[in-house]
């Protein structure tokens, strides 16, 4: 078995591994780095449960080779919370009952994080289109959309707050 050495930054931490070229990024994240917050749902690029950020862009990590991510910066669901404080998106999914079984939630939140980074004040339609690559089979999306709207409002308020107080909105 021929392996290749990959170095990448995962949630701000440098990480490396020897991988077979055919290893998928999601397997590197889950099975090698043991970050199991990222889920494998359909394994066919449809459901979005495996969504992570690769160099800031949302990607389905079941549809990227680990070797292709060599040198990249990866953010997974484990990288969102700051210390004991949940990220505003995580808190909003909790507050708004944006999950039932929770299986789609890590991917849903990562895609929402990508959406809000590009569009801090999305309309409901833009949110719906933004998460159109993420399937939830429990909630019917209503509370997921409410959660993303809550987080968007909090993140905007935090961005507008004077320096040094931004953390307050997240707690």
């Amino acid at each position, binding site marked *: 078995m021929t392996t290749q050495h990959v170095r990448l930054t995962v949630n701000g931490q440098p990480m490396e591994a020897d991988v077979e*070229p055919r290893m998928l990024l999601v397997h590197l994240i889950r099975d090698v780095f043991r970050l199991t917050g990222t889920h494998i749902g359909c394994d066919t690029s449809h459901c979005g449960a495996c969504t992570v950020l690769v160099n800031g862009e*949302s*990607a389905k990590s079941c549809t*990227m*080779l680990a*070797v292709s991510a060599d040198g990249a910066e990866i953010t997974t669901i484990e990288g969102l919370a700051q210390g004991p404080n949940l990220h505003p998106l995580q808190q909003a999914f909790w507050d708004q009952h944006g999950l039932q079984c929770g299986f789609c939630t890590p991917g849903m939140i990562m895609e929402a994080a990508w959406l809000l980074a590009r569009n801090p004040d999305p309309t409901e339609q833009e949110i719906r*289109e933004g998460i159109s690559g*993420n399937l939830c089979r429990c909630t019917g999306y209503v509370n997921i959309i409410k959660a993303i709207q809550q987080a968007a409002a909090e993140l905007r308020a935090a961005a507008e707050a004077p320096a040094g107080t931004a953390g307050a909105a997240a707690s």
Partner: protein
Amino acid sequence: MIPPRFDYVRPSSLPDVLRILREREGEAKLLAGGYSLIPVLKLRLASPGLLVDLRDVAGLDAIVETDDNIRIGARATHRQIVENALLADRYPIFAEAGATIGDPQVRNWGTIGGSCAHADPAATWPAVLIATRSALVARSEAGERTIPAREFFLDTFTTALTSTEVLTEVRVPRPGRRSGGAYAAIERKAGDFPTAGAAVQLRLGDDGRIAEVGIGLTAVAEAPFAATEAEALLVGATPDEATFREAGRAAAAQSRPTSDSHGPADYKRAMAAEMTVRALRRAVARARGEA
């Protein structure tokens, strides 16, 4: 699902890519965004000995305008194309069509070159390139050749590219005055491949009649194709509803859909007609400056 074993290289220049394709002829597959190829590998529909990842090759994703055409680098992502201001100004059909491809993650990584080289029979860009009478540029160590879109998509997953060529660029001719284009598609659910899709690019003459028109259909034959019979009856015609309907019928008659989970063949043929009509209506409105 795990892909079969393969070797992997990530060259940083186009000459290196071309050399590798020659040395490993028939064995190597090019990898761009991965949203077509990786599912194919996972389903084990292909087992290439070597993947050549294009992500480090610079200069393949620019979108620029020359005197004659707009050039879209093959590695430009769907999102880059959808958000490109130059294309939005000259060719609204690109943003309209690109926004229907897959979902945001797919559009973040999937590329126009990858989509065209993969040649899914229901892909969106081939219909647009056929309608706009664009050309695709293929490079090998022997040089460069330009292949009209109408001669590029030969069959399901089959193009005019040879195994030592890289698709480097798409060239879209500059639209003339009073031009308009539109893409209309029906899909079962958000982000799905279309059940039927029609791309139309046309130009109106000073007399208000249709001077030039291109129509590309997707998902209703073994490969995307030009609806040449509909085009022939539209040229010189007055753009009205009766003419659009007649063109729709001609486009449907030229389609060769098969029954599958997207619907029976008769339904797809009806949708090919309807999508052609809708795209024609919108293209004409845009050419007149009404939309």
